[in-house]
C-alpha cells in the first residue's frame, strides 16, 4: 500500500512480522535466485547483482512502488545479455524466481505489514503462483521441443500470431 493512503508505510514496513516478513524476505531472495540461475546458465556475466539486490531491497521496504518493474527489467536484460542457450532449463528457475518475486511483492502490497494473514489468503496466493510457474514450465517444454527442430517460417502462422497478440493487447487495454 502506498503512502497515499498509508501514511506510515515506511515506519510500519519495519514492523512487518509473520507472513508479511516472509514475503519481504522472498522479495529480496527471489531476484537473487534468478541471478544465480542466470549465472549458472550464462556464457558471460553482467555485474549488475548489486544493483538488482539493492532495487529488490527497496521493493521489500515499499512493495507498492514501481521499483519492482526495474528489478524485472534488470533480471530480464541480464538473462538476455548473458545466456546464449535458448533451451536451457535454468530459464524455468529464472521464471519461477520472477513469479515468486512478483507474487510476493503484490501480496505484500495487499495488506498492512503487521496484519495477520489468514490460511485462505496464503493458500490462494500459493496456488496462483504455482499455476504461473507451471505455465512457464509448459512454455519451456514447448520451447525445448521446438528448439531441437528447425521449423520453417510460415506466413499464415506469423499473421495469425500477430492477430492473436494484437487482440490480446487490445483486450488487456480495455480490461485495465
Amino acid at each position, binding site marked *: *500500500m*502506498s503512502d497515499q*493512503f*498509508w501514511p506510515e508505510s515506511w515506519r*510500519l514496513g519495519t*514492523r512487518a512480522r509473520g507472513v508479511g516478513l516472509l514475503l519481504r524476505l522472498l522479495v529480496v531472495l527471489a531476484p537473487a535466485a534468478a541471478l544465480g540461475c542466470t549465472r549458472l546458465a550464462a556464457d558471460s556475466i553482467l555485474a549488475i547483482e548489486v544493483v538488482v539486490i539493492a532495487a529488490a531491497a527497496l521493493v521489500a521496504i515499499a512493495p*507498492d*512502488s*514501481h521499483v*519492482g*518493474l526495474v528489478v*524485472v*527489467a534488470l533480471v*530480464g536484460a541480464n*538473462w*538476455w545479455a548473458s*545466456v546464449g542457450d*535458448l*533451451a536451457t532449463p535454468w*530459464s524455468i528457475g*529464472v*521464471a*519461477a524466481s*520472477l*513469479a515468486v518475486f*512478483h*507474487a510476493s*511483492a*503484490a*501480496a505484500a*502490497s*495487499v*495488506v*498492512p*505489514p*503487521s*496484519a*495477520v*494473514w*489468514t490460511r*485462505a*489468503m496464503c493458500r*490462494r496466493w500459493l496456488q*496462483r503462483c504455482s*499455476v*504461473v*510457474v507451471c*505455465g*512457464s514450465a509448459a*512454455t*519451456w517444454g514447448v*520451447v525445448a521441443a*521446438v*528448439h531441437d527442430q528447425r521449423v520453417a517460417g510460415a506466413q499464415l502462422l506469423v499473421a495469425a500470431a500477430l492477430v492473436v*497478440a494484437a487482440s*490480446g*493487447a487490445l483486450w*488487456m487495454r480495455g*480490461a*485495465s
Partner: protein
Amino acid sequence: MTDAEGWRPTPAHLRAVVGGGSLAVAAVMARRPDLLVLAVPLLGAAVMAAARRPEQAPVVTQSIDHGVLREGDATTWRIAVADPEGRVEDVAALLDEAAWTDRQPATGQVAVALHADGDEALAIAIRSSHWGRRRVGPAVVVASSAWAGFRWVGRDEADARLLVTLPQPSPFDAVAPPVRTPGLVGLNRSPRGGSGTEFASVRPFQPGDRLRRVHWPQSLRTGTLHVTSTWADQDRHVVLMVDALTDVGVSGGIDGRASSLDVSVRATSSVAEYFISHGDRVGLVVLSARGVRRLAAAAGHRHLRRVLEVLASIERSSSLVDDGRMPRVLGEGALVVLLSPLLSPASLQRAATIADRGLQVLVIDCLPEQIAEWADEPLIGMTWRIELLKRERELGRARAAGVAVVPWHGPGSLDAVLRDAHHSAGRGRHR
C-alpha cells in the same frame, strides 16, 4: 484506464503488464523463445488480474458495538464488506489509534480473504483507558482484486463515531448517617417524627393524629387512645461541585497515575453513584475554564447517566487559573460537596462562601498525594513541597473556620465528616 467505481490499477499490475509484455515482445523481436518462458508468469498474472477486474465498488459499513463505555472497558469496531460481484479477494483495514485507546490487534490492522474467511474477522477491539469524549475511526478499508491487480480504497469520514468514556468510579461507600436537609421525602429516615413509613413508637393520641394511625391493641389495654408514630422520610439534596479549573499531575489513564482532575472526576462519579443509589437527588456544578456547567438536581439511574456524561465532557485546562468564580444558585438546604485540588486560595474561599450561605459544605481534597514525588527534577519537587506546606497551612485555617476538608481515599472518605455533619445538624447548628 478508467476508474470503475474507484477501482484503480496497482503498481503490481503495471509491473506484470509492462514487464511481461516487454519480455514477450523481446522474445519475438530477438527470436529468443527463452525470454517468453520468463514472460509467462508476469503475463499470466496480468491476464488473470484483468479478467477478474471488479466493476462495482464494495459496500462498506463500519460500526462500533458500544458508544458509551466505562474506563477500562472494551468494545469492538466492526467492518462489514459486501461484494455483489464476488470479485473482491483480499480486504485489509486499519483503524487509527485514538487518544487513550488500546487496540487489539495492537497495530489496528486486520486482513481477510473476503469470500473464504467472511468479514467477521474484520473487527478491532478498542479499550478505552481514560474518561472523556473522543472520536474513533473511520478505518481505512482497502479491497484488492485478483493478483492485487486493482485496488479500491474507502475512508468515509461519516463513519467516524463518538466514543464516550464515563469515569470509572473509585470504590466508595459511606456508613455514616445522612445529613439532615429540609426535604422530607426520600429513602432516608429523618431524626424527626412525621408521616413516614418507618416505625418510631406507640404514643398517646394527640389532636391532629390520623385515625388510621390508632393502635387498637394498646388503646384497649390502656383505655386511652394510642397511635403509632413514624419517622419522617427525608430526601437528601446533594450538589456536587467539581473544580475543573486546574489540573495538575500526570494522567496515565485507568492503569497509570491519576492527575488531580482524574481524581476529581472519578471521585465525583463515585459520590454521585453512591448518593443516587440511595435515592437522593444529586445536582452537579462543573467549574471549568469554559464557564460554569450546571445539571439540575434529580434522582434515578438515568440522572446518574447524565451526571457521568457531563463529567466525561469536562476538558482539561491548560493553565492554573482560578478566578474564584462562584455558581450563583445552589439548592437551599443542600449538602454541597466540593471536589477540588485546592491549589489556590480561591478554592477554599469558595467553600467558605458557600458555608456562609448556610449550606452544609464538604470539601474533598483531590490533589494526588505523591504529586511532589512525581516531579522529574529535584527543583520542581522541592517547589511542590513548599507549595504543599503553604497549602497545608491554608487548609488548617479553613478547618479552623469550620469547613470540613477531607482527602479522597475512596471507601469511607466521607464517613467522619458526614457523621459530624449529622450530629451538628441534630444539635441545630446548621452552617
